[in-house]
Structure formats: C-alpha cells, structure tokens
C-alpha cells in the first residue's frame, strides 16, 4: 500500500513537468505580447516597448526562458507576475480561499440535491416523480451557470432591491457576509453540477438495483429503505464519487464567467486575465497548480474507493 502511494506521488512529477512544457510551448505559440498590450492604445514609442521586453526577459531565447523558469520552480519559487511584478504566490493566495470555499459550497449544494433526487428518480423509475427530476436535471445541464447567476442577480435586485456583496469577506471575519456573497454563485454553479451527478446517481442506482444481491436482500425481507440506502446506493456511489471529485477540481479554476458575473476575485478570473495579458509566469504557475489539484483529487478518489468498496486493494 505504502509503495503504491509513494509510486503515485512520484508519478505526479513527470505529469506536472509534461504539463509545464506543454503550457510553456503553447503560450509562446499564441500570438501576442504582454508589453504591446500594456501600452495598447497609447502613443508609446517602440524604444519603450523594446526596453520593457528586455526588462521582463522576453527577448531571451525560448529555451533560456524555460530553463530560468524551471530553475525557479525547482527552488520552490513560482516567480513574479510579468503584469504586476508581484510574486505569483501572493496573487494566488489572495484568490485561492474564495475559489476553494465556492467549490466546497457548490459541491455541498450539488451533492445535497443530486444524491437524494438521483436515488428517488431511480426508485420511482418512469413515474411522474422520475420525469420531474429528469426535467429538473436536464434544465441544469442545458442552462449555463453564469446565465442562471445573471438571472438570479437581476431577480434579487428587482424584487428585493438586494445584490450579493461585491467584496469577498472571509468566513473568519464575518460568516454572514461571507455566505451572502457566495450563496447565489454556489447555487448557480451547484445546480449545473448537481444535474450531472443526479443523472449519474440515477443510472448507477438503477443498474445496481437490478443486481442479484439486491434481489437476494429483498427476498430475505430486508426493508426497502435499507436495500436502497445500504446495499444499492453504497455500491452505486463509485462512479458518482468520480464525477463529483472531478467536478470539484474543475470548480477551483473553471468558473471564469460565473466569477465575473458575481464579481468574485477567484482563480478562474485570475487565469483568464493572465491569458489576456500574456502573463506567462502567472499562466504557467496557475496551470501547474490546477494540474496538481486534478492529480491530487484523482489520487484522493482512488483512496476513497477503498473505503467505499472493500474489494478494492492497491499494492
């Protein structure tokens, strides 16, 4: 087991190096220049542009830029944002708590809806309850979360003369203000997220309910609620957990438009701004971070499998 864990952790290194090389090359292949953008629309002479490119090291050969960056990474330094000059770590630290909290809230909301409704739809298959739940989930899949968010904000402003606070308050400072700022985006994001998980829960529970051991349990006279919750749901959860965890990892950096609609200062917005600015060090660091999150979440899911299904053992 220990060997397996160490092996998986070591495998992360080539994965992340591969991501780093890919990101580095792709960003250099995309046309655009941070310095030209910095002075877009202003009457700045070419000499200033050239000087700034030199200061930022953008006039060095590509391989040189890459080795410089990898050298920094090896020393645990993500470098400085080319756009602001501030350390990348500092910029990420400002945004990460919000993104993690939003991802957790949205996940909680999604799971709280998806699992019970998914099970209910499976148990009441082809009844009106099933149809209503399926329509509800298809609605979540069809409507982009940012659009739902936009409607929610317009609704609350128009009806209640209230909009979510524009400034994020950490939960440690004021839990009520924190919740007021995140509740609408969490619902907007969580709804779409729940739709995916709900459909997955429904189909896997349906599949498990047809298994022999479920029939056996029923034949033995076990109560239906116990059959469903203990025997069917637990075994149906493996793919659901996979979907939920991958969605969670996606939420850390993937809520770009929703963050803009609610003016949330999160990782997604930072990444898109960095791409728009061609802020190479910021993009490379963020992509590396998000890749690490995905790899770690995948690893964590594999570990969770063992607890959900005692038959699974890693060696």
């Amino acid at each position, binding site marked *: 087991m220990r060997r397996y864990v160490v092996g998986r952790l070591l495998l992360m290194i080539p994965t992340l190096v591969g991501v780093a090389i890919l990101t580095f090359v792709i960003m250099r292949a995309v046309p*655009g220049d941070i310095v030209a*953008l910095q002075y877009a629309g202003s009457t*700045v002479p070419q000499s200033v542009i050239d*000087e700034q490119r030199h200061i930022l090291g953008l006039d060095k050969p590509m391989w040189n830029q890459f080795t410089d960056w990898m050298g920094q990474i090896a020393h645990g330094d993500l470098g400085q944002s080319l756009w602001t000059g501030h350390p990348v770590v500092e*910029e990420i630290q400002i945004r990460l708590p919000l993104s993690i909290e939003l991802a957790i809230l949205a996940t909680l909301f999604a799971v709280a809806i998806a699992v019970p409704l998914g099970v209910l739809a499976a148990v009441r298959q082809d009844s009106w309850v099933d149809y209503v739940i399926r329509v509800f989930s298809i609605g979540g899949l069809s409507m982009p979360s940012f659009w739902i968010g*936009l409607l929610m904000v317009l609704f609350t402003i128009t009806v209640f003369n209230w909009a979510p606070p*524009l400034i994020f308050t950490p939960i440690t400072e004021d839990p009520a203000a924190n919740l007021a700022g995140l509740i609408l985006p969490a619902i907007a994001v969580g709804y779409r997220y729940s739709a995916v998980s709900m459909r997955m829960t429904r189909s896997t529970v349906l599949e498990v309910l047809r298994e022999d051991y479920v029939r056996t349990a029923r034949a033995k006279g076990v109560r239906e609620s116990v059959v469903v919750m203990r025997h069917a749901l637990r075994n149906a959860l493996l793919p659901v957990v996979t979907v939920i965890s991958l969605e969670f990892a996606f939420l850390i950096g993937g809520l770009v438009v929703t963050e*803009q*609609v609610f003016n949330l200062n999160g990782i997604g917005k930072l990444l898109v*701004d960095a791409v728009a600015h061609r802020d190479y060090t910021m993009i490379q660091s963020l992509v590396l971070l998000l890749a690490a999150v995905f790899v770690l979440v995948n690893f964590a899911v594999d570990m969770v499998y063992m607890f959900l299904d005692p038959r699974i053992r890693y060696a």
Partner: protein
Amino acid sequence: MVTYRRVAALSLTFALALAACSPKATGGGSQTPAPAGEQPRPGGTLTFIVNAEPPSYDGHRETTFALLHPIAPHYSTLYKFDPSDLTKVIPDVAAAMPDVSSDKLTYTIKLRTDVKFHDGQKMTSDDVVATYQKIIFPPTGVLSPRAGAYAAVDTITNPAPDQLVFKLKYPSASFATNLASPWNFIYSAAKLKTDIHWYEKNIDGTGPFIYVSNTKGADWVGKKNPDYFGKDKSGTQLPYLDGYKALVITDANAEVNAIRSKQAMIEFRGFTPQQRDDLSRALPNDLAIQEAPWICVNYIVPNTKVKPFDDVRVRQALTLAIDRYAGSASLQKITIVKDVGGLMRPGGPFAQADADLQKIAGYSTDAAAAKTKAKQLLADAGVPNLSFKFLNRNITTPYEPVALFVIDQWKQVGITATHDVKETSAYQADLRAGNFQVALDFNCDFLDEPDLQLAKFWSASGLGKGLNFAYYDDADLDKMIDAQSRETDPAKRKTLVAGIEKYAMDTKAYQYPVLWWYRIIPYLNVVRGWRIGSNHYTNQDLETVWLAQK
C-alpha cells in the same frame, strides 16, 4: 526677464488651448454636479468602480486610466486642471503659473512651501526635479512612455528649495500644458535615490488621500490626508471625503448591477447609452448623468506596405465610401461614439469648422457623390471588387459596431471586407508586426493637443516607430507636424494643423478617423463636486468630491 504680461499671455494661451474642452451635459437625470448654493458636506466614503487594474503603481511608466482612477488621489502634480472648470490649468504644488522668458525658452516655477509627503517629509524643489528627471531623462531600465512629450526640455534645475527652472532647446507649444499631465505624480527624491523603482510597488505622495490597502483583483482603499495642503475657495480644508474605495469590477453587467444595487456610486470611465438608460429606468430618483465629447477616436488604418493600399486612390476610396454623418446618427444610439471630426476632437480648440472639414475626402454631406467617386477611384486603381481582411480587436464597445458600420459602407461601393476580430494581445501583435491589410486603430488622450493627437502620424521609421501602423514614411508630413509643434501662436498653429488634416486624411489618405467617442457617466446623485471632462484621465484626485446626505 520675466514679466507679468508674459505670465498673463501664457495663461491666455492655456485658456485658448483648452477652450471648448468644456463638457456639455446632456441626457437624463440631474445634469449639474451640485445644485447652486449647496455647501459641500465633509465626511463619507466614496465607492467607485474601476474596470481594470494597472500593471504597476507608477504613474510615470503606465498609460492606463486604471492606474489614475484609484491611485491619482494619493498624488499631486505640478499643475492640474481646475476641477470646477476643466478648461483651465491651475497650480497644484506650484505656487503660481510659470514665469516664461521672452524667448519662451525658460520656465521658472515657484513652489508651495507647505506640501508634505504622506510619510511626513516636506516636499521641496529637489523632489520635483527628481520627478521630472525621471520622466524626461529616464535612466537605463526605467520606462517613461511620455518622455517624448518633453523632447524640447534641455535642463531642469532648482536654484532654491521653492523654485525650479526648465530650460528648453526650442519653443514648444505644448510644454506648459504638459506640466499638468495627470501622470506626472510628484515623487520623493530620497525614495527615488534609494530605489528608482520604489514607486512601482509602493505609494507615498503629497495628494489628498493616504494609501490604506490594495487587494489585487478586488479593491483599492484610501483615507483622508489630514496634512493635505489644499483648501477650497472658502478656506475649508480639502478633501471633503473621509476616504474612498475603488472596487475592481471587470464585467459590464456587474458594473451596472453595482450602481443599481447602490454598492458603488460611480464609474469614471463611461457607460454605453443602453447601460445609461437601464440605470435611468431602475433608479429614476437616485441617478444623475453627465455626458461629454471624448478625446478618443477610432482610425481606419490601411497598411501602406501592402498592395493595393500603397495606392493613394485605394486609400482615398476607403474614406470616401464612409458616410460618417449617417454613422453618427445610428451608432450614437447603441454605442459610445457620436461626433464627426478630423484629427482634432470636434468642438475642441484645434478642430476645423464644419464647412472646412466637409471639403476633406470622406467628410462631404453628399454621401452618394462621395460613394460614386470612391467606385471610380477603385476602378482607376484596377481593384473595382476590392476585398481584404479588416483587423479589429474583440471589444464590443465601440469597436465591433463601428467596424460593422464601416464594413457595410464599404460594401456599398463594391468592397468586401472580412471582419478579422482578434483578442487584444493578438491584435496588437498584428498591428506591430504589420501583419494586416486594413485595421481599426484607436487613440485616447488627456488633452486637446495636436502634439498628442498627431503622434501616430510621424513617419513610421522615425518618431512614429511603434505608433504609425499605416507604415508610411513622409518627410513632408514630418516637417508639417514639427512646425505646428514649435508654433506658439494658437491661431497660426490651428491653421498649420488644418493643413496637416487635409494632407494626411485627403491628399495622402494615410489614416483617418471614423467617429469620435462620447463619454456617458451615470452615477448616484449623492456624489457631488465632480465634473465630467473630455477625457477619463484628468480630474481624478477626488479633492473636491463630496457626498450629499440621503
């Protein structure tokens, strides 16, 4: 050497140069910044929106309004524009308007003696000299994008702690007004000496507000400077506000929602007509609106290095095909453009009269005749069915509607232009590499000043390097631009500028404006003491802004 008459003459030059910068408030809502007779009320925190963030905190090296809006309140400049009359330059840390020698080569400036930096240090002429040395003669590794605006400066000296002297190599029409540039924050000589880059990441000014905090991507906070030197006309200590908070909001819908939910009071750059109307409907009793012509413009830029745009007839056809008056009538309803003008802002001190402008290709009110002539020119040039890619940036307001309008106009004379929309970075890369056929360029300035508005018209391999994306070299045009720059008589200068407009937009048809922008600021009417100007750079120190009780 220096006479009172010359000081008065200089002031008059300022006034003439800035005449007609004055905004004309139109639109709905209450249109005056404060009802007559209302006394400013001290206290309160102004919350405003800024929809971008600056790369650094250093005004000398950046060019974006996103720096000025949150950061200008921390700083003073040598001169500034009068917040109550934005056509007028007034002293800021200077004690009076400059004394100018008879040969117009020496500017002697007396400084205030009661100015302190926020760290408690007294400001002296050493600080002002160090500031302008950094701007005009930046050492290696220090960026100063506006150094060229002070090319006439030979030396800066300070004979006394409260006096400095600029000596020029040749008379410059724009030099004095450029001393009121909102970017020229006064920095501490001691701090610059310790680290010339100190101000890129730190704040220490002499302005009305002290820096409190900046959360990247979220907000910028300032509080009242109790030792600020400024006082209003009745002798009351400025600023009136206790502080301000700038909220970073980058999404247009979120900006409107912020005002609508009263979480923000104002955004100083500008909203679209639709956003103004939405807010007017939502806040009929709480909204004020100020509007003004804007010193921002979109240019059509044919790449003269690419065939057939090396042919003047083709370039002339492109401008002749555009009915700017029809464009103004329709586009002003949906986006932030309005006035038809040449290279100088329409209504501004250097703009030609409409009758003269209409003699220039593309500005005739007889659109049908102009289009016929455009077709003829294209036929003569051998490209009656001209087709090309029209490079544009992926920003909706106003680039997209302006480009679509122009493409439609061209279609009417047989030109097929494909809208080649790219995100800003790729668009800039193409412009700078000359990798395009025809592009929609843009320019914004803080002042109606030919030296600024003509900066993109110098020869591409000379002073226009990196600015002139039409990529022509024209020694005659260079001479014309240089001559107007040295002409200190405003009337004569205006004539020279008119000649440049005729030459650059018609005779050679190098590049030409579509429509000039129009600035619309809807805001909560508790905000008082702020007046819109014809740019979004000046009048941002918030010194005279106050909040009415609601």
